[in-house]
């Protein structure tokens, strides 16, 4: 989709009919809108969302009050937002009305395809707009003002996950999973009414209780993980302050180094532990087989010496004698005679090819065990030694960290001791919460196991109850489909996470002046770490860039998925990106690099900036890519009185930022494109 023009008619603070033509030239793809607080920035952003989907964001207050008050006072009873756009080479006009007196057959939303000389009204405008930009994805393009806040917010995990799921278009799978869960429960609850036994009812209730327990434990675990993240962030902030204070710079530097070494030692210890376990799995048989190998070898050798293994008689030879009915000594071996019976009995002990092969394999296996046993303890010893060294390093580093902390606690000025005490109490709280997370995980695992057992029991009971069997069949099918879809969703998310991770890293590489690592856990915990493995404080410029990098990565991911064929997922899209104050509190350097990057984020970018946002070289860096430029001006019915005149200059054109003695209270759009 490429936006062409938006027209607002008596919509909120925009009195009368006012328009913005968007820049759509690929080389000048930025539409710059200068707007201070309270002049209708949020209204403008919401107008796009509302026009297409009839929705507004949480920040949009009094969402049912859409018609301009002065327009109402003048007797007008409706407002509309109209958006002209291009999609796949065709022009469309979307229009949504808000009416004071909506009649039953009033059609509030329509889309027309504009063809040469005439236009065609689409029958299903909702369906169409959802194929152009699926509703779930829209908020990430058309109203981006909150992404940075999401990242800097205290619990970003679920917001990030939802954003990824929205862009991945997994709404259909998610709803299907939810519906299948509900439907499975529906079928299970049908069972007791169809048979006499109360057992199934009991099992069914037990499953219900377990499902509830698992849900609560999962929620608690997620919440605890969020709390740990918040605590870690608070610790990172304290570390940052200590790192930058003259009195503690050295000590904090030592702590950073010790923490980095501690992480490495813990990693080494864990690896050695894994190696020991893996070694035992692979080689344990060498140790336990030592005695039995020796005994078997001795036995085989002794029997071989005595000529018992393999047997001195070959099966083929004995059979030949019996067939010829004559012994090697010349005696006759008539069938049924005593001699024939005795020779035939030799077949029980006679060696054949199979037996000889088997014996040969046994010897080869025993030799392998014996050789393996000879080298095995050496390898195990090496891993045990590695683990022991790592553990000693951990103890030494922990002691070193405790000593550093003691010293910091002793610095009784500039709030240093208080900060360190706070840090220690935060660390303790985080560890306690981690223990609780472990306990929750164990509880979930145990409840899952109990649930699986209960489901098996239910199946068993249903086997003997013909009336209930069909419901169990349906219940099982729902559960099977649900599990499959959950697995599919997880796999899709894994792919999405890798793509997004790579995109974010690339954006940060292009815009940041420091080297740091992006940490993105499987449950969407996102943070930035420096080389020493220390988390960067959220207030850092790098973390502010992270919000923008994430938005850019989402846009790129949606573009990559625009022709995706998977029927379970909604296709991606190419959509205009609307950014509200993307420069946040960035310093001058970051403003410039970010401003240079913004036009590359999407095929069309609409950028809203305040006066303070526009400073620091950002606009100069952006200027070459700006195709259209507007100013939102505050309009007042009141007289100016003693109020100061505020005039800003745009490309040599003076614009009064607030006008007085006007016909209405609200905002007006002024084009300042040079």
């Amino acid at each position: 989709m490429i936006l062409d023009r938006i027209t607002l008619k008596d919509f909120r603070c925009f009195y009368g009919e006012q328009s913005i033509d968007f820049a759509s030239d690929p080389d000048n793809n930025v539409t710059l809108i200068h707007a201070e607080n309270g002049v209708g920035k949020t209204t403008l952003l919401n107008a796009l969302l509302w026009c297409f989907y009839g929705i507004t964001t949480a920040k949009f207050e009094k969402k049912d009050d859409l018609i301009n008050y002065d327009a109402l006072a003048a007797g007008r009873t409706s407002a509309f937002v109209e958006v002209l756009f291009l999609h796949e080479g065709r022009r469309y006009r979307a229009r949504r009305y808000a009416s004071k007196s909506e009649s039953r057959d009033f059609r509030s939303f329509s889309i027309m395809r504009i063809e040469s000389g005439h236009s065609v009204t689409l029958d299903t405008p909702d369906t169409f707009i959802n194929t152009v930009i699926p509703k779930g994805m829209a908020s990430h393009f058309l109203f981006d003002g909150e992404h940075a806040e999401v990242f800097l917010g205290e619990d970003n995990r679920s917001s990030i996950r939802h954003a990824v799921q929205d862009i991945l278009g997994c709404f259909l799978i998610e709803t299907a999973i939810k519906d299948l869960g509900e439907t499975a429960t529906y079928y299970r609850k049908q069972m007791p009414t169809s048979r006499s036994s109360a057992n199934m009812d009991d099992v069914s209730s037990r499953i219900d209780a377990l499902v509830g327990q698992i849900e609560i434990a999962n929620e608690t675990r997620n919440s605890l993980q969020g709390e740990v993240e918040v605590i870690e962030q608070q610790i990172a902030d304290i570390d940052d302050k200590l790192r930058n204070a003259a009195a503690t710079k050295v000590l904090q530097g030592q702590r950073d180094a010790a923490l980095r070494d501690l992480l490495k030692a813990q990693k080494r210890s864990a690896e050695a532990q894994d190696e020991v376990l893996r070694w035992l799995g692979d080689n344990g048989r060498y140790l336990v087989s030592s005695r039995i190998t020796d005994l078997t070898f001795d036995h085989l050798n002794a029997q071989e010496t005595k000529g018992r293994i393999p047997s001195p008689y070959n099966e083929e030879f004995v059979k030949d004698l019996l067939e010829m009915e004559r012994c090697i000594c010349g005696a006759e071996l008539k069938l049924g005679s005593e001699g024939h019976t005795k020779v035939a009995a030799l077949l029980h002990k006679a060696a054949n090819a199979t037996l000889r092969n088997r014996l040969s394999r046994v010897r080869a296996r025993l030799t392998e065990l014996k050789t393996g046993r000879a080298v095995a303890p050496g390898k195990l010893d090496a891993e045990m030694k590695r683990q022991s060294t790592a553990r000693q390093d951990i103890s030494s580093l922990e002691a070193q960290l405790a000593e550093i902390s003691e010293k910091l606690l002793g610095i009784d000025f500039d709030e240093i001791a208080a900060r360190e005490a706070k840090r220690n109490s935060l660390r303790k709280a985080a560890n306690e919460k981690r223990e609780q997370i472990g306990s929750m995980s164990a509880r979930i695992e145990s409840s899952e196991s109990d649930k699986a057992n209960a489901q098996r029991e239910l199946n068993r009971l249903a086997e003997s109850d013909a009336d209930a069997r069909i419901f169990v069949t349906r219940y099982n099918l729902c559960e099977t489909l649900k599990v499959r879809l959950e697995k599919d969703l997880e796999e899709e998310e894994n792919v999405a996470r890798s793509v997004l991770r790579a995109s974010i890293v690339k954006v940060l590489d292009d815009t940041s002046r420091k080297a740091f690592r992006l940490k993105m856990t499987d449950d969407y915990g996102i943070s930035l770490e420096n080389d020493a493995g220390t988390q960067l404080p959220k207030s850092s410029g790098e973390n502010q860039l992270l919000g923008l990098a994430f938005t850019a990565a989402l846009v790129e991911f949606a573009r990559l998925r625009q022709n995706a064929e998977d029927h379970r997922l909604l296709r991606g899209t190419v959509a205009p990106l609307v950014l509200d104050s993307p420069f946040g509190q960035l310093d001058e350097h970051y403003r410039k690099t970010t401003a240079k990057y913004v036009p590359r984020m999407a095929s069309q970018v609409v950028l809203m900036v305040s006066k303070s946002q526009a400073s620091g070289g950002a606009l100069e860096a952006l200027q070459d890519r700006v195709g259209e430029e507007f100013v939102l001006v505050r309009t007042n019915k009141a007289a100016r009185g003693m109020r100061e005149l505020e005039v800003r200059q745009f490309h040599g054109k003076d614009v009064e930022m607030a006008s007085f003695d006007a016909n209405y209270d609200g905002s007006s759009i002024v084009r300042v494109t040079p």
Partner: protein
Amino acid sequence: MQPENNQANETNTQLPNDDEKAIVRVTEEIIALQREFHFENKDKVTERRRRLRDIIDRATASGREA
């Protein structure tokens, strides 16, 4: 549209879980149902779930597998 089928005494028509084709077919039907309701902007959960039960009923009904 198939009527809802809750008759408990019908003959057992176990859909084998290892029947990959049947599972794939039912999954496709369910996703198509979700797609229909999503795009038509129908916020009718009860109706959607009733249609889902129809799909499951058909998939587990003897001789009437979807």
